[in-house]
């Protein structure tokens, strides 16, 4: 749900192993798979007396269909509302009384549950998680009160975030077939309409151990984790694999446009969204570096071309990691006196300049250095480690890719960046969304 968290996952891309460091290495990560198909990865780190457990479930808004949009995220909420051993409210109460805290996030592709706790509460965490995976109690009363919470989450996102408002509209226009068409939080009417049966079925299908990857990082020992995983998680039966998502978004054949009116918007906001391939594509790294070239740091292309020139007060790009082909977003906020159209033209001109003229070797080296810093920052905390390792395992098929990323990024040349800009950041492949207080007139 929260874009910032996804952006964090996205930004922790790289490790340049050539740099001598005490940061985490591939061999520090141990993994094993239970008979029921649940994969568990362990990263021992005793720098603080704490640990994390991250449960990555391969379910997100991508797995939904019209009528139940938003159910993956709603389900995330329901996972805290009571199971067999730990009834209503007891998941949080038990965890907090042991010194732990938790949260969760849902994206288009995955749902991730996060537990942060003093390391000696590890067994309590296993017990709590196993209970809700195996025996979640989905009841009417809880569903009804949680609908209000999710409706409030939806409202407060639209109230406080222009990005959220624009993204919801732009996805609807850019995708007409694939489930990336709707926002992760779902359509308002669907939030009001889920049935208990929908939820029960969803839980059985997607919260099966064979559909999960668990990462535990912190002041723990591999043997201890193995013993607890065998005791608590291994008895949970595997289920038939979920149905595959087979829809392929048809090729976009021309520019699409959407407009959103909101009276309190002080200056126009413009968002561009271009179709790009899935994260497993060879072009991922070049596109990721291109994103940084456009907006990371004040020396970036869009900052120099628009903010410094007082056309925009803010510019941003975002490309989520993604199982299926998704979107590359570019967003700008106009400087007062600048129209939406002027801002849009300015943004497109900078993007097109890369397609036309390419980037310099120095620019490319710069963003590779930025990626390296991002990686170290992520590896500075047990939280960053757990999240990064799991994210790579899911989106690239193996956490090894985290440690191969340096080579992959290093191989990218200026010609590659220019080629991906030419291939994907084209007019016909673009959707434009404008948010403003009033729509510009035809006259």
């Amino acid at each position: 749900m929260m874009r910032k968290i996804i952006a964090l996952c996205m930004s922790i891309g790289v490790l340049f192993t050539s740099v001598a460091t005490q940061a985490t290495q591939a061999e520090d990560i141990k993994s094993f798979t239970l008979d029921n198909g649940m994969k568990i990865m362990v990263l021992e780190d005793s720098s603080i007396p704490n640990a994390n457990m991250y449960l990555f479930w391969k379910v997100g808004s991508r797995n939904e269909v019209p009528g139940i949009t938003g159910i993956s995220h709603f389900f995330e909420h329901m996972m805290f509302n009571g199971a067999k051993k730990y009834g209503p409210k007891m998941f949080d109460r038990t965890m907090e009384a042991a010194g732990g805290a938790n949260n969760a996030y849902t994206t288009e592709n995955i749902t991730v549950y996060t537990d942060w706790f003093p390391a000696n509460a590890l067994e309590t965490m296993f017990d709590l998680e196993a209970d809700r995976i195996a025996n979640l109690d989905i009841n009417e009363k809880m569903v009804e009160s949680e609908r209000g919470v999710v409706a409030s989450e939806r409202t407060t996102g639209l109230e406080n975030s222009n990005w959220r408002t624009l993204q919801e509209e732009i996805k609807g226009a850019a995708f007409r077939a694939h489930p990336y068409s709707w926002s992760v939080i779902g359509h308002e009417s669907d939030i009001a309409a889920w049935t208990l049966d929908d939820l029960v079925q969803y839980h059985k299908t997607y919260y099966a151990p064979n559909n999960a990857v668990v990462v535990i990082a912190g002041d723990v020992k591999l043997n201890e984790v193995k013993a607890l995983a065998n005791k608590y998680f291994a008895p949970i039966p595997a289920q038939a694999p979920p149905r595959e998502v087979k829809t392929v978004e048809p090729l976009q054949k021309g520019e699409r446009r959407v407009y959103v009116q909101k009276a309190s918007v002080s200056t126009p906001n413009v968002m561009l969204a271009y179709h790009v391939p899935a994260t497993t594509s060879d072009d991922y790294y070049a596109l990721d570096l291109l994103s940084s070239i456009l907006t990371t740091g004040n020396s970036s292309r869009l900052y120099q071309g628009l903010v410094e020139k007082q056309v925009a007060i803010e510019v941003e790009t975002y490309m989520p990691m993604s199982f299926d082909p998704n979107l590359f977003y570019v967003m700008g906020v106009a400087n007062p006196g600048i129209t939406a159209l002027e801002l849009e033209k300015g943004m497109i001109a900078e993007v097109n300049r890369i397609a036309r003229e390419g980037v310099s070797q120095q620019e490319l080296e710069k963003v590779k250095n930025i990626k390296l810093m991002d990686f170290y920052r992520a590896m500075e905390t047990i939280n960053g480690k757990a999240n990064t390792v799991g994210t790579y395992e899911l989106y690239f098929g193996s956490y090894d890719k985290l440690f191969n990323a340096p080579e992959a990024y290093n191989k990218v040349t200026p010609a590659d960046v220019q080629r991906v800009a030419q291939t994907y950041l084209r007019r016909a492949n673009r959707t434009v969304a404008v948010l403003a207080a009033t729509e510009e007139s035809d006259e």
Partner: protein
Amino acid sequence: MKHFINHIPQKLSRLASVFVVASAVGLAGCAATQQSVSVDTGSFKMPAYEHYQLDNGLSVYLMPQKEVPLITVNAVVRVGAVNDTTSGVAGMTAQSLLLGANGQSKSDIEQMVDFLGASIGAQAGKEGSYIGADFMAKDIDKMLPLVRDLLVSPDFDANEFDKLRQREMAGLAQAKESPRNVIGRYFDKLVFGLHPYGNPSSGTRTSLEELNVSQLRAFHKSYYQPSNSSIAIVGDFDPAVMKTKLASLFGTWSNGEAVQAPMLAKQQPTLDKSRVLLVNKGDAIETTFLIGGKGVARDNPDYVGLQVVNTILGGRFTSWLNDELRVNAGLTYGARSGFTPYSKGGVFRISTFTKSETTKEAIDLALKTYARLWEKGIDQATLDSAKAYVKGQFPPKFETSGQMAELLSDMYLYGFDDAFINDFQKNVDGLTLADTQRLISTHFPQDKLQYVLIGNAAKIAGVAAQYGEVTQVEIDAIGFGQ
């Protein structure tokens, strides 16, 4: 997200990250006579560090950390919005440090910093002005001299300043598109009025218009002095080598006229009645609100105990406020409370949001839940749980070089020492039920509460009037309510 961690961002309230930790859960059914149980959350101590002063009075903190090959530098000057003569001068002075220095233009600096993959930032809060950088350890001899130049001899280039100011003014209008971004500024103004703690660090659109680089230069000269500053360096370095570098880079920085400190303890307004600031946002679909009053200063000996009590009221997911407003009633996505401490005072606030139609229901429920502090008090099982939670969530707040550099800067600014870290568990464990009662009656504002409501006035003005004397402003009006 299941819930927000901090749904009211406090960009400039740096201590908030330390303090808002606390919160609570209510195991309401447990008897008050239950035996106290202490949960062992492991041992956590302040890592080794050195603290010394250069001859010119600059305070230096050095803490080696080797986990990743990075270094964070955080310099803080004891000056902030409380020193503003024109609103926003401290904030704009801090931000303008980055506009060029010592023969390097803004553009030169940005090219260099970005190329190293490094980052650098500057901002002012209420009482401190900060410049911070993080970078790869190998780049220390490029980045440390840069930090020195920016801090000690900024150019305050007039053209660049005009552009920055224009962007900031536009940014102020844009910030008001998100009630969550600005509601804290309205609240401080409501509570502190003309007292310096009411000053928004951001300034206002009209005050920024008045500013010029001469004012920035004068402000810099008056306050940016070594005897009024500290520098904290945390990360992958050798302390002996670092000391030599610091002596050579900062040793020649000289002091000017004595710094004038504002008398912040004095003339804080008395809150003699309940007041409501209603901020009209005509297209609002929900009401965002804060309820509260005066809080405590950072050096209050009850600071840690208050984190525990606040954990129970509104500092964690199972807190009374979140449990009632979100879990039981489904009125909101999150409800919290917390103290924001300054050096000579502070605020306490309950914060949440709900759709326009349920504004009254949510405010009433928040007030009723808050009143439980006095009506029922806290039981032993709830206190034990809150203590475990506060202890268990403490170490991850001090895990990175950036977090440690910030902690060291705060130690300088607010005058506390590493006993805050080292005695934290002991102080939490020692808290008794009787202590919590004393903390509640002493520090939580019980009446004459202050309210800020941002929402659609046409829908909620009648509700607002039920809680005190109402002042109504338009959200796009310049400033933050007075």
